[in-house]
């Protein structure tokens, strides 16, 4: 009974955070960016207003588009929400005992349907976006999985809650956690199409990756996709924060929770700084950047194989 109660409480906490934190995080990134650029910028609550506005607005849908286009936002949302209930991104155990591989594949599903919806509109821009997204995923997914595989091999389980619970800290575990966090960070920046891979604020269709894919989404359809992207960002940043916390000794759940929130804000800050201070990489140099991510993850794997 207590176990059921615990899961119910966790589910409520997670669902409440899923509703609020993602958009707030986007708001924080935008505000931080504006301040760093010397602008006043909108309030961190602006993304909520944007989404509310989009939800109220009408939708225009291309006459070429078929049910794939209309269904894709729903599937991507559903898959991402399921993933969000599986990974302990809030510092406390997730309500569903998440599996590492299921988590990764759910997020792949979320990405694939967006690419398909872009191609469904017959848009050249959407197709270029989807094509680039595929090329980036080719490196980001194995890099992500390699880093997490090192942790899974270290912990001897693929259960994310068990994998990401800090145990006894040794030099090796700290180094493995650090390397994995660095590798994962680069991989998720690529996966989320943020700087220096893609500029989320670009206004030129030809240079976009993610934005090009959702060029034909509008109104409610766009609101769902925008929210899902925010949730995905939140999940990934939370995951990296949790991995980084493995380098430190275990703490009580409340402290872990507060630390996770702090790390989410820190992640948002890092994203803001990198987006202010960096320029977009040339398209052909992206594999070079991501090979660092793969290398960091492989080093973590090697270390686990040798020591753990």
């Amino acid at each position, binding site marked *: 009974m207590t176990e059921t109660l615990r899961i119910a409480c966790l589910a409520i906490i997670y669902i409440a955070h899923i509703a609020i934190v993602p958009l707030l995080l986007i708001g924080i990134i935008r505000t931080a960016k504006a301040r760093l650029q010397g602008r006043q910028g909108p309030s961190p609550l602006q993304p909520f207003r944007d989404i509310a506005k989009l*939800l109220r607005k*009408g*939708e*225009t*849908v*291309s*006459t*070429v588009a*078929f049910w794939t286009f209309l269904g894709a936002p*729903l*599937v991507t*949302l*559903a898959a991402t929400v*399921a993933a969000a*209930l*599986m990974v302990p991104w809030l510092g406390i155990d997730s309500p*569903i005992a998440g*599996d590492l*591989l*299921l988590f990764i*594949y*759910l997020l*792949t*599903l979320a990405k*694939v349907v967006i*690419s*398909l919806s872009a*191609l*469904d*509109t*017959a*848009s*050249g821009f959407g*197709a*270029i976006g*989807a*094509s680039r997204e*595929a*090329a980036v*995923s*080719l490196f980001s997914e*194995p890099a992500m*999985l*390699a880093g997490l*595989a090192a942790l*899974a*091999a*270290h912990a*001897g389980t*693929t*259960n994310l809650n068990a994998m990401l619970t800090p145990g006894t800290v040794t030099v090796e575990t700290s180094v493995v956690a650090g390397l994995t966090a660095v590798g994962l960070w680069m991989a998720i920046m690529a996966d989320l199409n943020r700087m220096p891979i893609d500029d989320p604020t670009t206004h030129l269709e030809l240079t976009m990756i993610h934005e090009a894919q959702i060029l*034909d989404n509008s109104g*409610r359809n766009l609101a769902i996709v925008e929210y899902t992207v925010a949730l995905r960002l939140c999940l990934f940043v939370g995951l990296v924060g949790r991995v980084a916390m493995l380098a430190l000794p275990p703490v009580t759940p409340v402290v872990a929770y507060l630390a996770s929130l702090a790390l989410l804000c820190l992640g948002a800050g890092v994203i803001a700084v990198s987006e202010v201070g960096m320029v977009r990489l040339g*398209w*052909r140099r992206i594999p070079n950047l991501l090979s660092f991510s793969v290398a960091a993850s*492989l080093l973590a*794997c*090697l270390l*686990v*194989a040798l020591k753990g």
Partner: protein
Amino acid sequence: MTIPVLPTLIGLLGLFWLILPLTACAQTPRVNSKQYPVFVGVGGLILIAVASFAWLGASTAAHAIPGLALGGVPFSLRLDPLAAWALAIIGIVSAAVSPYIRGYMDHLSPRVDMRVFWVSLSLLLTSMAAVVTAANVQTFLIAWETMSLASFLLVITDRGSSKVREAGLIYLGATRVGTAFLATGFLWAHSLTGSWTFADWHLSGTAALGPGLLILVGLGLKAGMWPFHLWLPIAHPAAPAPVSALMSGVMVKMAVAVIIRLFVVDPSFSNVAFGVVLLALGSVGAVWGILFALIQQDLKRLLALSTVENIGLILASLGVCILASHGGSALGWAAQIALAAALLHMLNHAIFKSLLFLGAGSVDSATHTLDLGHLGGLAAKMPQTYATFLIGAGCACALPPLSGFSSEWLMYKAALIVSSTQIEPLWRFTAMLIVIMISLAGALAVTAFVKAIGVGFQGLSRSASADHAHEVGRGMTTSQTILAALCVLLGLSAPALLVTIQLIVHQMTPASPPIISAWTVSLPAAFVVMAFTFAAVAVWLKSARRRDPIKPYSTWDCGFGPVGPRAQVAGVSYVQPVARMFGVIFRYGQTLDLEGVDKRLFPEEITASVNYESLLEDRIYAPLIRWIWRIGDHVVALQEGSIHRYLLTMLLALAILVAVGGYSR
């Protein structure tokens, strides 16, 4: 129960797959039979029943067939759990494909001899069942040869086209080479053990190496193991779609099942080297196959190369299994999980690949082309084919909760268990590299299939024939729907399948905990959350759209007016970024030609093209084949009609035989 159920069922199977098809021979050659697909379907159902009965009374004893023998060795069959699993795969796919055949053959039957088609099809189905149940070399080789020749005849069904004839020749060549390897390996194994029965062979250490490798190459050639996979992307697309489905979905798996029998479960040939070979070739094949799949412009070639990928994954998993089973008791469980992954993926791949080939066949019969550059816009015109193809592609990309996910999950799991066991660091790191390999192959598969769907089915039609396409007939869509439903069903019933597989896996290390306890993935919970979220938002969207309907508008065109089909992405350009990254392997190149008087500023005609070649085909196989031709030119001199040469040859042969005979005395 006194009625002998199993012999009765096998008798019925013979009736439906061997006796009744003979009536097909009595038909006129150009008529598309109504009854025959029913025989195929009923035969498939009977085979499923045979498999289940064999399962219930699982015995590993061999049964000799009275009165039939070759060289003093009786034909004998053995219905163990592994054979039953393979039979179930044949049964399910042939039963599901049978409603499709008639509708598809409609456009071929005016120009092909349907009698040959039906008879070859029955022989193929029966011989596949015999291959996996064969208990000794003689039975196996007869069944294997029948399977090869029957499938060869099916490949060249449409032999009016020179491309099909060429494909047939290459396939026939591949089967001959494969059989040569197999026969040599079998003879060697016989000379070492003195027995023709597989179950009597227990070779290990260096003794197993020679015959084992020969047999592995022979079987690998049929299975599509890298680097012997070259015939696959040539022969599978040339065959009619239902045959491609059976060949790519089922036939290659029969070779894999025999690999499992001889090398993995109760192995006849036991050596760590086989594990290394399978793991290495499987891993390379998985990435190589899907890499070449994604640059294909022909839908069926893409699918055939994706089979190379999946076979690579299965073989790599078997490699993990062999290596782990040699690694001591700590890894026994990992070995079982790897084997379970391979077996489950055999079934899953059989179903989704048949589905995808049938989908491609429907596209072919509706548009008369499989070139992605001429397709597009089929989603609205062929809604059922599109929806089922989408599900099949989702399976091929291992997207949860479809069936492909469960087997790939087990592959990952086996590798991760190995990597977290306290063994030599080298093996632990290798296991983590396997994880990365599977994930890379998965990401490439996603690219390939998004291309196949996005360019092949979605958007606007790229040609008039695609524009005039209609949904195919009821029978064809029925087959596709059954297979698509199976993809979903098998994905959700993975735990039940694992319980079934336990019987096969149990033969390896019986002491381990059941493999079902490895299935720790909370797939149902994820599925419930997804379904709930989807339904809740869908209901809200529906009511919102009722209040405020969607406004139809053109795709974003930068204000230049509606985009036409030419503005869409081409298959070649969709995969260009990926192809460039792996350009070393493809020797990928792009050329851009501008034509016109002042072509730099005002080109009148722009031609862009990409070219690629395969390192393997152009650098290794082509010179090898040229070399064989050159030898052939000289050898042909022996039979040009010169009587002196004939006499000399015979004399030499006699001398050699006498010398060999004298020496061996």
